[in-house]
């Protein structure tokens, strides 16, 4: 079953002359992990989670279906229960005085019965490895910890779809590692994950498909291996180091099978070197 489907989505902000999305068609299956790179990716995310057209004014044509339902006809509460969104700045996603209060906040807003909340809090904190910090004051947490709490607060709503808009942008390398570890665990749990980031090598490790948006349209929508083959030579997209090195040494051809990890790289280099 499809989790999200976009049909010929066109969107123009009120104060802009040109649409930023020009006929986007995407289908995301349940349980898939999609990475989005390029231009207007945040706008695309906002359309996928129903913020456009409910909260951000503009001109929208086309349809966005969330689990088969048109997002324009759904209420904010209904969308929030199905689609959890994590934004860039962890400071702006914490509103309460401690971790526990932040995690229950969204559940209270959608009317989850109090007797269910305790289990959900424990589960959500366990997934993001923040259980020891349950009663810690929010201002005492690091950036990575705050972002993990933001993810936990969204997971507590038990959404079917999780959209993350550059969740590691404001974080240091340690924080980034923590978030990608969490995403790896989430992917295994079967939740549909849509992630926007500017770190293609890390995304390639968890994404089933990678999308590139250029000039408001989808240029590529392929598996990571193929994605990097297409983008070899494009200075705007960073390839995984092992893939970059492989292409620089051996060049690109139709039959090229790119290594995506150090382990794969060692195997491939090993095979090639064994001929000599």
């Amino acid at each position: 079953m499809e989790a999200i489907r976009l049909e010929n989505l066109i969107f123009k902000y009120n104060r802009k002359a040109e649409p930023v999305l020009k006929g986007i068609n995407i289908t995301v299956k349940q349980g898939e992990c999609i990475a989005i790179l390029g231009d207007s990716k945040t706008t695309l995310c906002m359309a996928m989670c129903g913020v456009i057209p409910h909260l951000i004014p503009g001109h929208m044509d086309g349809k966005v279906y969330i689990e088969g339902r048109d997002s324009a006809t759904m209420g904010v509460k209904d969308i929030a229960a199905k689609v959890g969104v994590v934004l860039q700045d962890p400071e702006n996603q914490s509103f309460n005085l401690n971790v526990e209060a932040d995690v229950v906040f969204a559940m209270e807003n959608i009317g989850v019965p109090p007797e269910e909340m305790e289990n959900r809090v424990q589960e959500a904190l366990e997934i993001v490895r923040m259980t020891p910090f349950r009663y810690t004051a929010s201002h005492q947490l690091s950036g990575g910890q705050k972002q993990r709490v933001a993810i936990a607060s969204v997971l507590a709503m038990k959404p079917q779809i999780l959209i993350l808009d550059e969740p590691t942008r404001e974080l240091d390398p340690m924080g980034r590692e923590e978030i990608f570890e969490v995403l790896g665990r989430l992917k295994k749990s079967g939740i549909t994950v849509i992630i926007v980031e500017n770190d293609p090598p890390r995304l390639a490790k968890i994404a089933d498909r990678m999308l590139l948006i250029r000039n408001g349209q989808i240029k590529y929508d392929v598996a990571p291996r193929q994605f990097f083959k297409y983008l070899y030579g494009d200075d705007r997209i960073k390839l995984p180091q092992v893939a970059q090195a492989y292409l620089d040494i051996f060049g690109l051809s139709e039959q090229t099978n790119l290594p995506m990890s150090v382990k794969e790289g060692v195997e491939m280099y090993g095979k090639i070197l064994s001929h000599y």
Partner: protein
Amino acid sequence: MASYAVSVRDGRGSSLTEKHPVTIAICCLAMICAAFATVDITAYLVMLGMLAVAVLVGKIPKANIVKIIGLVIPLCFFITLIQTLSQGGPDIASYMIGSYAIHFSYAGVVLGAAITLRVLILAITMTTFFALVSPPRLTRALYDLGMPFKYAYAFTLALHFLPLIINEISTINNAQKCRGYDIDRCNFIVKSIKIIPLMIPLIIMCLRRASSIALAMDLKAFGSITNRTFYLELKPASVGEKLTAGLFVTGSLLFIIRSILY
């Protein structure tokens, strides 16, 4: 900025913090109304004694109380000075400046002392209230009293973001210093006038951040339903609490009537 949640969880919670916020509010209001009704120093000292008991039983940080006393001193020095100079009756001292006589009256000193105690009682009572009632409990109590949740929640939001805004001011101050605008080197009179290059970037920053915060809250369905549920449940006020509140109100009313009649 101390976290109320942390102060409860790390063992500083007390029996008073578990009481219903409305009960605590009624007792505090009764105390404040009684303080308004009189200028009797003895009565004020009794009230301060009651507040001291509340501070001890409620395990309220002494630093808060010392801070408020420190802030009251310049205010009350000024009030006492005005009263001393303007009240009639026997003098405790008098001086001549040129041909002009300045009289410091005893009645003025007594009245100034009474006003000082009154201000202290008001300040300590309010501090005690907010120390005993944590923001989530206050929010829940206001909601139960009928205030729409998004307005009641504004207080919790304010306490959460206050340290962030204070940090932002520091950042803006440093950024302006890099541009040669150093407000910290000015005296306190000039400082209070030269805040415009700090205020405008701060407001713009606040408005931008508010958009982002509001979006994040809306994405968590804030305000989307009227019958939201709560993880924190307020226990209804017990019979003992209601009796205590009733006693405070009755005592305060009797005291006010007595003060008016006598």
